[in-house]
């Protein structure tokens, strides 16, 4: 078959002449006025028609239009959307409330399932090093009770994503564009995490001894690595919304994904959440141990769950102690990024929230300390230290009261007249940050002291230099406390605001010195120490309620801090680049936030109960019905 080109076909018809005339008049240079336009643009016909699509001049090869760097930049630079109120779907209830509940539940479970494998791995390693199977069993049990949490995290996370896409479509479209392929990496990591989770959990007894234990520990390490990577990726979305980077002032992406992720608040949030997750996870599994302890009279089980509860509390409080410092770093970075944002959080309308925070942290510290003091009854050696408890308790209570003292009150002129000024002459000075910094640091030191005397209770030092070591520890405590009080009073009240911030660094360092030197010196003093008998299970029942108080306070505290972290963006989805024009673009009152936080806390409590219940189903066997209708056990 003869292969005629279209051009040849056209040329064979009488119409060809007419078409050729049109072609010549229309396109050939120098024949028509079009040539002027063409000359002005300086491009050939192929170049001009190619962008329309796959149009070509018959018989000519397809022309690839060269895209200049400037053109490419122009097409990529798309500003952030500016949705108007009508662009936000209305489903009849507050969209923010829906997202708030789902996001907070997702964060609670996410925190739990990221933290548990972390300390499970450490406990498993401890069991391997010490050769004590009890550690291994306890680590396994911690994994068992949190296993359902992984599914719950994913289910709630999926619901959250759907809610966001439905309720905030423009915002999500923007976030998709900014983070691009990172979303796929994030999704891919779930496959990886699931693989390590199931092989780690179900392989526990299969890889229990010898070299296989190393394989098992490696699986645990990889589980944690994938989990942590998921967390830091997700954190970058939150920190991008607070302090966007890698975009220009109208929100168009100008940097690569690394520049977008690595905003000024990313690492402070990563650290803060990492530590807080451990404290939170420890507190939740502690409540499980407390419930199991109270539910049984079997001495062996009570001993096991007492030990499990103690370990959980130990994890929670130990992780909690450095948390204020991580929080301090985060706030310092927020101030450095935007002083306005920092003040909105700490000195603006959100400032009242820190009174509630003080109540929550006070509850945590009092509960943690109370549990340690109660636990001292496990060993006879504790009588040597019990005299200290009343002083520690007094310090905690006084510092707690200073911490909750408000400073800037919203007063009418009448109230100001009654008060004799805008600030009370005694309570006013106690309400500002220097006083609170002193109080917080002293509370942390007091808590560490409780922890230290608890750890010492079942030991008698055998090294000759023990008295000198003890004197050194006392001296460190005295100097640190004096330093904290002096720095707070001098820099806080006798210099200007800028120095106040600097003074808190001295205080934090003093507290850290006490904690670190205390641990180091004690570990040296009690090397080869004589160990006094400990009686696990010998602890008052009421002490277990401290283990219920901890997760409730931690959960509420996380909800509260989520409220402030999100609210400092004020009326912006993405601070300074994408405005929030939804009906919920205001900062809700602390009372409304409190009610929302209580709703999510109670929901979380119920779902955690479900998680524990499912975990116990696995070890429960229904008795077989006997011939006489009764049950055999």
């Amino acid at each position, binding site marked *: 078959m003869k292969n005629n080109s279209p051009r040849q076909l056209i040329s064979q018809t009488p119409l060809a002449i007419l078409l050729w005339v049109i072609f010549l008049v229309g396109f050939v240079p120098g024949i028509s006025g079009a040539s002027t336009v063409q000359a002005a643009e300086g491009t050939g016909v192929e170049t001009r028609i190619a962008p329309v699509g796959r149009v070509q001049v018959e018989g000519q090869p397809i022309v690839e239009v060269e895209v200049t760097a400037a053109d490419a930049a122009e097409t990529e630079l798309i500003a952030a959307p500016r949705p108007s109120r009508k662009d936000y779907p209305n489903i009849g209830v507050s969209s923010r409330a829906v997202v708030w509940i789902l996001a907070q539940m997702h964060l609670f479970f996410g925190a739990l399932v990221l933290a548990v494998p972390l300390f499970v791995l450490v406990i498993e390693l401890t069991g391997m090093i010490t050769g004590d199977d009890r550690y291994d069993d306890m680590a396994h049990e911690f994994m068992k009770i949190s296993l359902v949490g992984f599914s719950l995290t994913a289910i709630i996370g999926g619901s959250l994503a759907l809610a966001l896409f439905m309720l905030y479509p423009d915002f999500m479209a923007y976030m998709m564009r900014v983070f691009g392929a990172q979303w796929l990496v994030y999704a891919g990591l779930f496959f990886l995490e699931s693989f390590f989770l199931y092989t780690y959990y179900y392989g526990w007894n299969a890889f229990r001894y010898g070299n296989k234990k190393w394989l098992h520990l490696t699986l645990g390490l990889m589980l944690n690595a994938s989990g942590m990577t998921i967390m830091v990726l997700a954190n970058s979305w939150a920190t991008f919304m607070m302090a966007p980077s890698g975009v220009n002032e109208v929100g168009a992406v100008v940097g690569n994904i690394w520049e977008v992720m690595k905003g000024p608040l990313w690492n402070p949030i990563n650290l803060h959440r990492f530590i807080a997750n451990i404290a939170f996870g420890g507190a939740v599994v502690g409540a499980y141990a407390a419930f199991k302890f109270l*539910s049984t009279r079997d001495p062996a*089980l009570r001993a096991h769950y007492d030990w499990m509860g103690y370990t959980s509390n130990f994890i929670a409080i130990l992780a909690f102690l450095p948390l204020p410092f991580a929080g301090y770093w985060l706030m310092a970075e927020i101030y450095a990024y935007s002083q306005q944002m920092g003040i909105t959080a700490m000195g603006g309308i959100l400032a009242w929230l820190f009174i509630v925070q003080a109540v929550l942290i006070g509850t945590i510290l009092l509960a943690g300390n109370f549990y340690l003091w109660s636990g001292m009854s496990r060993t006879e050696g504790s009588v040597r230290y019990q005299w200290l408890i009343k002083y520690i308790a007094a310090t905690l209570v006084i510092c707690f009261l200073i911490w909750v003292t408000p400073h800037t009150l919203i007063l009418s002129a009448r109230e100001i007249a009654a008060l004799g000024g805008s600030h009370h002459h005694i309570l006013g000075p106690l309400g500002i940050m220097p006083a609170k910094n002193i109080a917080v640091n002293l509370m942390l030191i007091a808590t560490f002291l409780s922890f230290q005397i608890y750890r010492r209770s079942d030991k008698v030092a055998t090294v000759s230099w023990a008295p000198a070591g003890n004197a050194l520890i006392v001296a460190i405590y005295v100097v640190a406390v004096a330093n904290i009080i002096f720095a707070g009073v001098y820099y806080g009240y006798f210099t200007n605001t800028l120095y106040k911030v600097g003074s808190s660094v001295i205080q934090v360092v003093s507290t850290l010195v006490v904690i670190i030197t205390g641990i180091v010196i004690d570990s040296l003093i009690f090397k080869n120490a004589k160990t006094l008998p400990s009686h696990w299970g010998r602890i008052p029942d009421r002490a277990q309620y401290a283990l219920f108080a901890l997760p409730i306070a931690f959960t509420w505290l996380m909800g509260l801090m989520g409220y402030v972290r999100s609210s400092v963006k004020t009326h912006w989805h993405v601070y300074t680049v994408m405005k929030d024009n939804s009906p919920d673009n205001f900062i809700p009152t602390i009372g409304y936030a409190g*009610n929302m936080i209580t709703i999510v806390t109670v929901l979380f409590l119920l779902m955690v109960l479900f998680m524990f219940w499912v975990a116990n189903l696995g070890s429960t066997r229904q008795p077989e019905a006997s011939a006489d209708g009764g049950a055999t056990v």
Partner: protein
Amino acid sequence: MTDTRDNRESSGSKVFVYAMIFSLGLTLVFTLVANMLPQVQGEAPSEQMVDLGSLTMDDFIALGKDLFENKGTCTLCHKPAPLGRAPDIEGADMVAVSEERLADGRYQGEAKDAAGYILESMVDPSRYVVATWGKKGTNDAESPMPAVDKPPIQLSTVEIDAVIAYLQAKDGNEVTVSLPSPEAAAETAAAAPAATGAPVPAATADEAMTKYVCTGCHALDSNDALVGPGLLSVGARLSTDEIRQSIIDPNAVISEGFPPAMPADFADKMTVRELEMIVELLAGKK
């Protein structure tokens, strides 16, 4: 660790109930604390249509004050010592302060007068940083203040002028910025919040006395009684607290022989500064 029916005591459900009551009770305590505190809602800046072309200068100044305290978020940092994170503005005469700064050898800006300096400090805050108030580590070369014409504050030109007018007027200085022209008004019609129309706060005690028409009923320069008692030696008769009380709660103690005619709403009308200025003035009349 496997449970058996034997060691799962019947107390399990009781423990569950107690633990739930305790946990929910504690949650309730936290909720109550949150609800007991002052309830403040942070509204997003409202974008309302306002006819700027019909503004009087007083309205314009009031608009500036509103912007200064709300949308501009100036008072977040510019507070009296030791609370502020930026120089105190409300407590200082900004025109006088501006002239001092213009005369400072460190000043490298382009402003020629107070209004220019204030404008420059708002849109280009790092141009001149007041000593000790710069960003940490920059040796006062960089200001921590955001440019107010950029996000997140984003004041329009007219709004910035209104703030300047307020800062000039609040201490009794002449306002040198012009009212927005009809063209500028048209350009920014949708950008500014509605003027509150609030009266300008008095800058001095005398102004405050005039503003609240104290002399309508009280003689200041004699002890003669008009509608109310004369105030020439009021500082000798009453303590500072009593004077304050007699202004904000005039019916608590009424001077013998006088009707309870003094308005009882000064506590709501006066700013705290105005009240304290009047109290100070009267307390000094001995």
